[in-house]
């Protein structure tokens, strides 16, 4: 029961989706804007529960599900981002969907499910759960991207996102397999421990290969150059509120897990020697430059924002490159606190921008060429103001959140002890001026151009107005009184590298000369499951093992014992075995 409470943020989201589906079925046809409120309230509740419950790190493992969850503020923060972005997207979509003939119940339920996936993703410790979370997040989005069924652009967006996303997921799965091959475990903590122990069969080369695959797979999800080619088409074809969610929530979840996986693997000197962290620097610079330059020639507001999203992925990669020392542990690194804050500010701004675009949808137009936005500032000052404020926040203008986020991020990059830190920031800020040009183009058509016959109609609703006002207020708050959010971001970042307990343990082991207990050599493809461990785990229903990380004391020979209790391989097989076949 206690554990059901502990994971309540997860099931509240999932339940919200189910409730939305059921209500959709029960209420027959007609307008269903109340479903958006159901989803918004459910997801906000889930976010609030996460922030309230997940404070001190707790590890929950579900042996029969092969699931290990790490519930701490890192998960709470990123989970809350995903859930709140989902709630905002649901509200923002209220006026948009009926105008475009998109099913409301379906969209709302899928938003809730995908938020559930994102929340699961950021708390997963074992690679199977992690993969499942990513797939729940992505599959819902594949459907959402294609939800404008009658439009060829919608179909293109869905198909492109699905095919390329499928490849990316496959690569991530391959990475999981490599890590399993390298270490014989799917639990990130165990993987790290075994790689660090480093003897015999653990294979840093495989782990480094896995690292590259992870970078490619999640680089795709966050739309980093050169894995960005889907972005403009998908952003253009999806309904704008969904796109805003895609930009904000997927980036938040994917960056959280990218940081977790990469920084965990880079803890291992042997892996770090094979693949330097500087790859993030180069990908970041590339994304910033390419996104800034190519956005200039776009003519559709959504494509402009898509390139802007690529630029932001680049800034975030630079932020990921600029790791900072982990609190209390010398010589170890973690994500710096500006990245979570940046994801928050970016997600809010992009939801505001896409949400405001979404309300200019009267009459089923799905066209957001800049010409159609001409002179909107005159007729619809409020919605246009939201669009302007969001675009300015994306551009990094004070006093909005985007400015402080960028400032903080660059601060961390400048602080990196590398000859490239200053040039990287100079390149990034110069590129930001280039990208400023296309943000200004949006402002220009909104305010300077005269309205024409082409100008879009405005469909509003209290729900969307509320959500839009919320994004502007949030952007201003983030820019003017950022302290609580900066602190939250820093705390969230501290939890990035998972094996907090194990790492502490490791530092102690380095300090004392006694050799750390090392497991028997594990070679790729053999010996993964020691003979004495072939005895399958007892078929307990859901046995929950809880150990607070603060008191996490691995036994004398942690690896051996753990394997005897529930070897990963055996547990893995257990999932696929029918109950009857169990002894």
């Amino acid at each position, binding site marked *: 029961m206690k554990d059901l409470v502990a994971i309540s943020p997860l099931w509240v989201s999932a339940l919200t989706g189910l409730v939305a589906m059921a209500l959709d079925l029960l209420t027959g046809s007609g307008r269903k804007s109340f479903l958006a409120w159901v989803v918004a309230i459910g997801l906000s509740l889930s976010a609030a529960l996460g922030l309230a419950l997940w404070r001190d790190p707790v590890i929950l493992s579900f042996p029969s599900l092969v699931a290990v969850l790490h519930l701490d503020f890192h998960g709470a923060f990123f989970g809350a981002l995903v859930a709140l972005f989902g709630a905002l997207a649901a509200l923002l979509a209220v006026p948009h969907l009926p105008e475009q003939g998109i099913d409301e119940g379906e969209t709302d339920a899928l938003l809730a499910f995908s938020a559930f996936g994102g929340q699961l993703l950021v708390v997963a410790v074992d690679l199977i759960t992690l993969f499942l979370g990513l797939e729940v997040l992505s599959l819902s989005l594949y459907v959402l991207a294609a939800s404008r069924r009658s439009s060829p652009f919608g179909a293109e967006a869905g198909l492109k996102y699905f095919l390329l996303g499928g490849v990316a997921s496959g690569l991530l799965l391959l990475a999981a397999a490599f890590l399993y091959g390298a270490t014989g475990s799917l639990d990130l903590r165990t993987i790290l421990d075994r790689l660090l122990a480093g003897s015999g069969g653990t294979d840093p080369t495989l782990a480094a290969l896995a690292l590259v695959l992870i970078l490619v797979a999640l680089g795709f999800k966050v739309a980093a150059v050169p894995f960005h080619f889907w972005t403009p088409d998908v952003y253009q074809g999806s309904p704008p509120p969904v796109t805003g969610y895609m930009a904000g929530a997927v980036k938040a979840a994917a960056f959280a897990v990218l940081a977790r996986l990469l920084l965990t693997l880079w803890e291992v000197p042997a892996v770090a020697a094979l693949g330097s962290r500087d790859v993030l620097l180069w990908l970041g610079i590339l994304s910033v430059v390419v996104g800034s330059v190519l956005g200039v020639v776009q003519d559709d507001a959504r494509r402009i924002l898509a390139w802007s999203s690529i630029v932001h992925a680049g800034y975030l990669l630079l932020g990921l490159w600029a790791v900072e020392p982990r609190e209390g542990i010398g010589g170890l690194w973690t994500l710096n*606190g500006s990245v979570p804050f940046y994801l928050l500010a970016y997600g809010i701004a992009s939801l505001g921008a896409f949400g405001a675009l979404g309300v200019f949808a009267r009459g089923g137009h799905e066209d957001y060429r800049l010409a159609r936005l001409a002179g909107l*500032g*005159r007729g619809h*000052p409020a919605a246009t103001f939201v669009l302007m404020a969001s675009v*300015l926040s994306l551009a990094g*203008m*004070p*006093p909005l959140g985007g*400015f*402080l986020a960028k*400032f*903080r991020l*660059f*601060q961390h990059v*400048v*602080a990196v002890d590398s000859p490239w830190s*200053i040039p990287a*920031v*100079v390149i990034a*800020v*110069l590129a*930001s*001026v280039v990208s*400023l*040009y296309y943000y*200004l183009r949006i*402002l*220009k058509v909104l*305010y*300077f151009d005269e309205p024409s016959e082409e100008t879009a109609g405005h469909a509003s609703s209290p729900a969307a107005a509320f959500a839009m006002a919320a994004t502007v207020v949030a952007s201003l708050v983030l820019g003017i009184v*950022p*302290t609580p959010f*900066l*602190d939250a971001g*820093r705390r969230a970042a501290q939890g990035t590298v998972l094996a907090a307990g194990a790492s502490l343990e490791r530092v102690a082991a380095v300090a004392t000369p006694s050799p750390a207990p090392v497991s028997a050599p594990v070679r790729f493809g053999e010996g993964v499951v020691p003979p004495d461990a072939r005895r399958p785990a007892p078929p307990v229903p859901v046995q929950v093992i809880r150990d607070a990380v603060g008191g996490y004391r691995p036994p004398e020979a942690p690896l051996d014992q753990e394997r005897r209790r529930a070897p990963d391989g055996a547990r893995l097989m257990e999932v696929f075995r029918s109950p009857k076949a169990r002894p």
Partner: protein
Amino acid sequence: MGIDTVALTPWISITLLIPVAGALLLALIPGDRPRAHRGISLFFSLLAFLAGLTLWVNFDPARAGFQMVEDHPWIPAIGARYTVGLDGISLLIFQLTTLLTPLTVLSTFRAIQKRTREFHIALLTLETTMLGTLVAMDLLLFFAFWEMMLVPMFLIIGVWGGERRIYAAVKFFLYTAVGSVLMLVAILYLYRESGGQSFALLEWQRLELPVRAQVWLFLAFALAFAIKVPLFPFHTWLPDAHVEAPTAGSVILAGVLLKMGTYGFLRFAIPLFPEAAGLLSLPIWILAVAGVVHGSLTAWAQDDVKKLVAYSSVAHLGFVMLGMFALNVEAVQGSVLQMVNHGVSTGALFLLVGVLYERRHTRRIDAYGGIAGPMKVFAAVLVIVTLSSIGLPGTNGFIGEFLILAGTFREALSSQGGFRTAGLVLGVVATTGVVLGAIYMLSMVRRVLFGPIVHEENRTLPDMSGREFAVLAVLVVLVFWIGWNPRFFLSRSEASVTALVERYHQRVAAERWTGGGQGAAARGLFRAPLAEEGGR
């Protein structure tokens, strides 16, 4: 420099908040009530002026440091603070801003007819950001205000401007943004070098940075400020922005916004990087004098009144930059006063051009001629303002230009060698610029006001209305006030300027070289590596 007095009542913050409160109130008024918009805007800008007067009254001219300082934590995580205060340098420009804004609001009563609510929101927001830039003593706060100035001005030019307003607005925004992003990198670098604890200007002034780093940082700051000033050759955005902006935009742009650049040099670039400022003063002098000559000659060739005034701004600010980098008390005092003068005179000139434009809807000089007859008051005011702009003794312009040139020559004469020669040549060329200024301004006045009336419609032009006269009367009073009693204004900034100059010379003298004057400092820097080698 330091903190001299702490505010008992946060008058600075109150002054900052008044315009933005007016803007928020305006946002609640329906869009179709222009009279209400104008009234609210005027009321709040006058209120800000009155609140600003309390600062003038409470200001103690004998103190050199910052006064009425308010200091509160803003973002403790990175040590950014909300620290605002005024010293003698910022006080004058601060008052100028609070004075010009209500005058600008008054001037728009007829000129701005469309979307009055949005216009006044933008104008009031702009006032707050400009005032914030002037009082910020925390670099992050300063940078935030500095960037915030861009958006309202961008909208004012782009929405209410002339035919090529979009081009001008985007050019204005991008030019200024390019400059300021490099300043951002410099700020980040300084933050790292200062130990990553605070953004406080007063702490950063104590940093002893190597000259090489200083030069780079100075250049990054200087680019941002030079574009804003605008220093030749970074001035090309200015004529476009000025010509396309509505009258109110031009007045604010010329009167206050450009001062942010010169103010930035005085407040940040010189105190933070004194050695670099000494080293680079000669190149800046050359650019400043080039700006004087280029601005004057280009202004001479214009047949658009507004463009002429815009180029005259380039020339005037060239003088300001010249005086500032002479770095002695007379010259810097002169350039502080000249900032105010330029705001008054050029602001008035733009208002007068606006008066003409409202009547004839053209800015071509040859569309006028002989209008001194029908518009007698206008003619009188235009002549007075023109004389002030070219620096006739008895007007404000004379005091500023005289101090600048006197200080510059003194600086040149007190140095030796190549610097002396260069300084004297530049001083002579700059003085010629004064003559050039008289030529183009007076010829403009002649072609507009005097001679036969060529165009029939000019015969019946109505003279200035009471409202228009009231606005300009305030500025004309200032022209003579500063011209006859400059002490009243100079005494406010004297202590701060003296402290700034002394500090600069201490810092420069504390390095390897000795000798007075910034010329010696620069030479010392050039010579330093050789002297070191000789020593070895």
